[in-house]
């Protein structure tokens, strides 16, 4: 996500990132809670789960990130995140994004552009999956008739 940033810009970013340490099994955030930012995994492993029975949607590791929707949209978390191993995470939050846009607009814009590209890419993939699933459903319905 920060691959386009120069060393100087990374130093500016470092000042606003929050390093957090999580024990194995510790909850990063719960589904339904208000979220204000995203997390990047520096070390360890995080499970993204949904529902009361904690159904696992994805297992993320070093270099992955999650919760990025909350950076742009003030809405409750759509899934829970739990550290499945002892982990070190970097938190990047909406107020800090606004602050960097205000003080270092060039750096802020680069981050914002990259974030939009990644969300657009996920949307594109979701659309493809959605289309494939719809086609499968139509084929099944046709077979049933």
């Amino acid at each position, binding site marked *: 996500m920060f691959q386009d940033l120069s060393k100087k810009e990374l130093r500016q970013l470092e*000042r*606003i990132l*929050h*390093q*957090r340490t*999580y024990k194995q099994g*510790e*909850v*990063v*955030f*719960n*589904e*339904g*809670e*208000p*979220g*204000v*930012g995203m997390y990047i995994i520096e070390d360890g492993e995080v499970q993204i789960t949904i529902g*009361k029975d904690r159904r696992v949607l994805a297992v993320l590791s070093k270099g992955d990130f999650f919760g990025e929707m909350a950076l742009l949209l003030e809405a*409750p978390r759509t899934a829970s995140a739990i550290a499945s191993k002892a982990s070190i995470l970097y*938190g990047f*939050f*909406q*107020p800090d994004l606004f*602050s960097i846009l*205000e*003080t*270092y*607009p060039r750096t802020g814009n680069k981050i914002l552009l990259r974030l939009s590209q990644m969300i657009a890419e996920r949307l594109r993939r979701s659309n493809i999956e959605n289309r494939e699933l719809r086609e499968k459903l139509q084929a099944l319905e046709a077979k049933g008739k």
Partner: protein
Amino acid sequence: MDITINRFLKILLFLLGLAAIGWLVVKLSSIIMVFIVGALLAYILDPIASFLEYKGLSRAAATGVIFLVLALILFLTVLFVVPPIIDQVKVIQHNLSSDTSAEAIKNIEQFIRKNIPFMKESDLNLQVRVNEMVTHFSNSIFGLLGSVISIITTLVIIPFVVFFLLKDGRSMIKNLVSIIPNRYFEITLNLLYKIDLQIGGYLRGQFFDALIIGILSVIALWFLKVPYFLLIGAFAGLANMVPYVGPWTGASLAVLVVLISNGEVNQMVMVALAFAIIQLIDNVLVQPLVVARSVKMHPLLVIFAVIVGGQFYGILGMFLAVPVAAIIKVFVIEVYNMYKKVNLAF
């Protein structure tokens, strides 16, 4: 049984801790007040530092530039504004004990007695009351500058606090946030952000609004040849920071001074008119431009907060009442909303 004893001990320790913190706050209240004033000034100046950072300066250089400009303003104020204000306070105190003002007050007393017959002589006694009021007023002004918090504290510690909070404030907040447990970390960040949104614009706006109103009042009173124009203008500007009560206090003081000094009805009307125009300019032009209407509170709540603030911390308490009430309001609303959302989700 053991669990009950443990719980009891924990509650006892918690209460003892709270009492110790309360005792410390009371004992160190004057130092805490210095830090609050410093933090408030740093908070007001923060957008200027951010703007200079945006223009390419480092945070330290931006803080340095702000301090140079402030030092220049302070130097000019001490050189040109403070001596006349001190002189004017002395002149007010002297004039009130003079024969002319005594006669003017006597005339007012006679006028009231004639028109309100049920007023007894002992009910009025205006001369003594005005003397008491002015002595109290001038003492509180000098007290604010000198005796309550010593001059050394005011001149050295506050700028020191402002400098470091302005330069390192962000990393200090980051370090403070880092000690919050993971469970409450994001909620705390969200709360801090919401509080900043609510009171940031309000505080900065009120500060610049008071400055503009103060300057306009000084110009108007100087133009109308009102004695002690500098002092009354500065007071009107400062008083304007107290919602609802403030603007009336400044105008009343100016009219009262004219009444006591020469009692000319024309000049009193002109002064009242000037303050009405200034308030009109404030409401129509200055406030919509400068003061962000971020603090949305019912007028009754604002007045209540101002009275409570005044009761605890005097003039400073009245200034701080609205932002403190806004912080409490945001805190309660956000915690309630979070509780509701979490309960709805599960």
